[in-house]
């Protein structure tokens, strides 16, 4: 069970975010759901890199080779994406603010009616 449980949690988080994104009535809420989707990908990546009984490959307080270490490559991928993802969230929120200025609403359904 434990062999796949973390992967399934990652999938659940991702799909929940997608559901929220599709049914959202408010674009700010949709941006929040998108960050939930992102969180799912982080969980999946880090779960792939985990090794039982290992510790982080950070040797400031650890003698190299004394303990097994987890995979640093997936961690490096996730690490940059967390911060870059936050700025992309900011960009999307800026778009939402702009939409509300132009059209006076942030409900996606009303917006598609406006377009005709």
């Amino acid at each position, binding site marked *: 069970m434990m062999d796949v449980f973390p992967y399934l949690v990652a999938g659940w988080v991702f799909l929940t975010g997608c559901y929220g994104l599709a049914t959202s009535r408010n674009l700010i809420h949709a941006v929040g759901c998108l960050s939930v989707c992102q969180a799912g990908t982080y969980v999946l990546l880090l779960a792939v890199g985990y090794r039982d009984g290992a*510790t*982080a490959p*950070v040797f*400031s*307080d*650890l003698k190299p080779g004394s303990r097994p270490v987890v995979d640093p490559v997936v961690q490096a991928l996730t690490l940059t994406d967390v911060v870059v993802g936050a700025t992309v969230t900011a960009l999307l929120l800026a778009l939402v603010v702009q939409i509300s200025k132009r059209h006076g609403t942030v409900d996606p359904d009303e917006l598609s009616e406006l377009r005709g």
Partner: protein
Amino acid sequence: MNGWILAAAVVLGGGVGATVWGVATGPLRRRVVAQNLCTAFACPALLLLSQGYDRPSYVDLALVLALLGPVGTLVFARLLADELAADPPSAWGLTYAAAAVGAVVVPALCVATGPSRAMAKLLVVGALLIGGNLLASRALSGAFPEVRRG
């Protein structure tokens, strides 16, 4: 699995689990209190994990959380001020209970570490955590006499 990690799992399952439930349901005043308490429980859990994994460098996580957690709560206190003023939260029992968790965990870890610079760092984290959380929950409840700037 050692005792420290077990203790961290208990704090996470009990404390943080309760705050996740509290933040997801109920009126706004309960949600902001739960968000504040989440910091107060997660930070001691991170300290316990650092000791459990025998990695002193993980203390940096708790340090950053102790600094920025109350800042996050102050953000909510400032930007949701109008809604909170109509229905101010007050949960002093829970706040002091959460502070007590921090106040128990930090000395225990200090004893385990022994007198050194690492112990001083733990004490700094503990002081920032408890001070920040008490202040943040007072700011939420609006118990302060307000002053105008300047």
